[in-house]
């Protein structure tokens, strides 16, 4: 077409590239700390939906929690028994997003993982030997403090590790959620290339059709 249109297109392209690389899509960031499901919804490129509906459903698709997002688009639900949930945010104007969280994201006393069982059983075996050795060495017990219950200790350590990991991983998961929806220059250029290719194919088809219609090359 004309050079002016191409200049116009280039100007608009330039505007799009230098402006906020923003997009029009709602995303959801969800994290689990202890038994609290929390997170926030955000529009890629800026903005958080405020006061919109948040729904949490369990694995059987029954609604277990309804709420609204706060001023920062955030929400939290702390009464979660461990399990698989789906968190959905719907702004009501055609933006909706949902995110699944699996049961193994939960931790804490309410959910002893199967892997914890052998670990708990293991320290019990040396106990009789230890007790027998103590009895033989000294009739007066030299125990200063009671040996901690291995199961309780295990739970405590697990909870502390989970909490620390959740705290450390949160920014990473957040960054990942942001990066997933970023507009990439390559994709934009690929899309424009696709349009140019389609136009070329259309013109080729039109030229062929006209040649067969008239029988003479244009």
């Amino acid at each position, binding site marked *: 077409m004309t050079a002016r249109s191409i200049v116009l*297109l280039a100007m608009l392209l330039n505007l799009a590239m230098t*402006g906020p690389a923003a997009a*029009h899509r709602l995303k959801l960031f969800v994290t689990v700390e202890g038994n609290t499901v929390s997170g926030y919804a955000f*529009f890629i*490129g800026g903005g958080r939906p405020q006061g919109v509906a948040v729904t949490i459903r369990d694995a059987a698709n029954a609604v277990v929690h309804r709420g609204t997002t706060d001023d920062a688009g955030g929400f939290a639900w702390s009464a979660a028994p461990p399990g698989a949930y789906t968190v959905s945010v719907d702004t*009501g*104007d055609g933006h909706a997003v949902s995110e699944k969280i699996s049961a193994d994201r939960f931790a804490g006393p309410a959910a002893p993982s199967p892997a914890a069982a052998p670990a708990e059983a293991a320290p019990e075996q040396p106990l009789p030997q230890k007790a027998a050795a103590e009895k033989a060495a000294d009739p007066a017990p030299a125990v200063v403090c009671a040996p901690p219950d291995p199961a309780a200790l295990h739970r405590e350590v697990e909870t502390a590790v989970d909490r620390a990991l959740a705290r450390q991983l949160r920014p990473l998961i957040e960054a990942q959620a942001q990066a997933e929806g970023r507009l990439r220059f390559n994709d934009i250029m690929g899309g424009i290339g696709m*349009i140019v290719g389609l*136009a070329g194919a259309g013109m080729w088809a039109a030229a062929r059709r006209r040649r067969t219609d008239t029988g003479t090359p244009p």
Partner: protein
Amino acid sequence: MAHIPDGVLSLPVIAAGGAGAAIGLALGLRALDEREIPKTAILAAVFFVASLVAVPVGPSSVHVLLGGLMGLVLGVRAFAAVFIGLVLQAVLFGFGGLSTLGVDTLNMALPGVVLASLARPLLLGASPARAGVVAAVVAALAVFGTAAGVSAALALSSSDYVPALKIILLTYLPLAAVEAVITGFVVSFLARVKPEILPVLQPPEIRP
């Protein structure tokens, strides 16, 4: 907003939107002769890029639609341009669902096409300034046409959406103003330097 994701609309709405968009696309492709292809492709590319850029407005976020501009410059071929732009946005960036492509195409293309053809008597032989003013009105009304289309699609799908529709109209207000300014300037510029680009400025008989 105008990119409705999967799983929001009900099946009848999706089917009706798909049928409407298919008719529009068929008309658009029929009108797409060799001379019109580059123009359509350039506007499809502009639409593809420009509607990726969204700005937050209140509880939602908006982006330019360019429906009025496409209707004025492309006529019924706007369907083809919008459809290609939306397919690429859905596939590359996940904006809007694939199942809602028909509804989205109809919402974004139809108001501009209809309003541009209605404005034709006002634009025939108009001065560039007047053409710009008429184009601005067409663009603003096309934005509200799109808002009405989105609202109707949502309201027909589920009555849960009805309370939020007021928000949609509010967020579209600034958008309509911005689109009116952009389209007004572009059309008055084109009418001054290259009036043959705008089919709505020409009497119908000299159009191919």
